[in-house]
């Protein structure tokens, strides 16, 4: 089975509830380490403006490019559900490997705290919740119900197979597990 995300870009107000809920659940410090980020696009000239938001978790790719990028095999993909996890003990730390996974990932999902030598961490699809058959906390937090998650197959049958959204470009190499309703 492969898990994945659904994101309805037409509903996202960029409010940040998902980002904060993620920090809360995983007890992350304020600062650059954000397992969920919100990306902003603004185009056009007043008054013809286009604005959209895009969520940025880890997309738990089908062929994750972060895995071969890591010199010590700290990243792996779980067989049973395709969740891409990182063994932070094994990770060399930001300076030592010069952010190789982050540089490889087209979606900037690998995250580092601001401290020197900090180990990579990232969205783990709320593994502990998933084990209890609960949805990721970002999904449950979204006030506009712009997010969903679960089996990618089920998401595709429910929401379709659109892989493009404003500010996002689908990488055929890494195959992110996400479908969209784009704006």
């Amino acid at each position: 089975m492969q898990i994945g995300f659904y994101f309805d870009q037409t509903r996202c107000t960029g409010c940040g509830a998902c980002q904060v809920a993620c920090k809360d659940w995983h007890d992350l410090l304020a600062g650059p380490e954000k397992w969920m980020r919100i990306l902003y696009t603004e185009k056009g000239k007043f008054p013809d403006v286009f604005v959209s938001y895009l969520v940025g978790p880890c997309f738990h790719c089908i062929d994750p490019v972060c895995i071969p990028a890591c010199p010590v095999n700290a990243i792996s993909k779980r067989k049973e559900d395709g969740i891409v996890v990182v063994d932070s003990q094994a990770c060399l730390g930001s300076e030592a490997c010069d952010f190789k996974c982050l540089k490889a990932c087209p979606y900037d999902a690998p995250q580092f705290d601001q401290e020197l030598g900090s180990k990579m961490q990232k969205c783990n699809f709320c593994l502990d919740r998933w084990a209890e058959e609960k949805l990721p906390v970002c999904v449950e937090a979204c006030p506009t119900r712009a997010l969903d998650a679960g089996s990618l197959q089920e998401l595709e049958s429910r929401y379709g197979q659109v892989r493009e959204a404003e500010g996002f470009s689908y990488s055929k190499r890494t195959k992110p597990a996400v479908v969209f309703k784009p704006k």
Partner: protein
Amino acid sequence: MKSEGMSKDSGETKIVRTTSAFDCGGRCPIRLHVRDGVIIRVEGDDTAGPDEQLRACLRCRAYRKHIHHPDRLKYPLKRVGPKGAGEFDRISWDEAYNTIVEKLKYVKEKYGNSSIFLASGGGYLAALHNGASAMARLFNQIGGFSTSYGNVSSEGAVWACLTQYGSVMVGNSREDLLNSKLIILWGWDPARMISGTNTMYHVIKAREAGAKIISIDPRYTDSAVVLADEWVPIKPGTDTAVMASMAYVMIKEDLHDQAFLDKYTLGFDKFKDYVLGIEDGIEKTPAWAEAISGVPTVTIEQLAREYATTKPAALMDCQGPARSAIGEQYNRCAMTLCAMTGNVGRPGGSAGGGLMGIPVGHMFRASGIPAGKNPAEAGGPSVRGTLDLNLRLARRVHINKMHDAFLKGKKGGYPFDVKFLWSVANNHLNQLGDANKGARAYASLDFMVAPELFMTPTARYADIVLPVTSPAERNDLTRPWPSGPYYTHINQAIEPLGECKSDLDIATDLAERFGIKDFKPFTDEEYLRMFVEKNPETGPEVKDYEKFRREGVHRVKLPEPIVAFKEQIEDLENNPFPTPSGKIEIFSQRAADIENPEQVPPIPKYRRTKEDRFDPLTEKYPLQLISPHPKTRDHSSLYKVEWLQEVEPHRAWINSKDAEARGIEDNDEIYVFNDRGKIAIKAWVTERIIPSVISISEGTWYDPDEQGIDRGGCVNVLTSDDYSPGGAAILKTALVQVSKA
């Protein structure tokens, strides 16, 4: 209590179902995970399926970082440095109480009770612990006190609704939005201003059900980003002109609902005379409005036609644009358009008025501890239902003039000289107009007590600061601001931090020292049960108090959405409007009786004002300033929470045209200034704001440097401390200039 422990820590983690008490308008059920006396996680509502869940926004998702913030005050403090410097020493409760009692007795004796001033605000809003009522009860029992009139948020809209409808319950429940074919967000940004949980979600659902949505706003708001088919940028303070010209188009093209007006309204002919220029020789044409507002004539014509011919349509005005120099006219004019299009009292329509109040779950209808009568205000004029602000201000000071009254007292024409200030659940220095004047006012006071959770810019001026419990440290009842339909229960999650006490306990301790018997005849728990069981609304509705308490929320099942004034529209004879005439008063005799037709016109009118965009002052200060609600705070509460700060850095919205003209690039440090003061802030150069307007969200903390430049970017350094003829705090009518720092 149902326990659903986390995987790793089951047995040790308890789940507490509760809500916060922020001044956000939402009351979202949350589940706090508590371990070893510390809140370790926050989860959302699970008492309904995903669609019905009352989903918390980012603020309550960060709740634990507010409650357990390292800067929380935990011990009583006395000031040891100069006022405002923030130098304090820890003292005991005994010492704090002794000092307070001594001061109170002295002031009462020497200057009389009217010199005791109670300033309260929306720091936390709940039935039992809300800042004001416990101290009001105490002060009343020792002879009374002085206080302010009005609230900062909504007085313009309240005045307008009372004038037009005689009622503030002007809202439809949010499910009714799904019946609309056209929704006009006129200055309304529900994504940011919560105003009843899930409101934004319902507007999204309405859009997805096919409603067309238009946003009329100086900014392309996040609500507009998601909702609007069309954004109509407009200059601040000119909404009423555009509305009047929409009325002009409707009248000229005979698109208005004359039968509705004839049956349900009073004075439309007078409004028509104004619009057509019969009254004053100026036709309120779209071209006239274009010159004022910057909205093109064709856009206005289309708007008028579309609104008049799409049925039903909901014109959603708000309270924000009404916090301006003659802001109440905006709500009055909106309500008049609602009547002209026959949308009042109709499903999918709207009554306008900006208050969105429904009579189920409304905070105004909650019970609370009785404050009793105020002997210091005895014999004052009756103010019930009056539109005359002078009557309301006979014994009180308008809230936005509070600091001016501290400075000037009776010599300045105010009804009292303040010698003792109890300043609770507010951060008025920061949140009222003209913060620099506020700072001078606090510095001038003889004695000030500030019960607080944090050392706010206001509290820094206090002589005694008392540490107050947060709503996570006590039990209480809360309601959403205007529109339920639900009630929420706060359940205590953790023990009071440090030596924190609730305001009610503080008042009770002081009462004892004054020898008052039976000040608090019931326990907190007894009170709460009574407030639910004896309240005319919740009594019959909430059958099982224990269940309500356990679940933290009680939803009212409405057979159909509430539509304001439906009864009046269906059967006017038996259900007249609660106005003197029994009709919707487009012409108000009560307003006419005030005999100030320029400032208090009996029919809604566009009016030029001080610091509008045509004021000669624009030569010096060419930009109009607006100060919307922040999305990462509740006003100035939650300011310290870093998780929230990083979601949206505090920056001034400035159009690229205005930025370029000043050599400003995105993220540059800029100064924003006028004669009232100067703030330092970063610029956000964006196409999402109309040129010549700058937008700075309210609520960051005032922090002046040696030169008096506010490094905190507190927007109220720049706003005025005036109020409108209807009583609105004028926080959105200010002219400024901007320069690169």
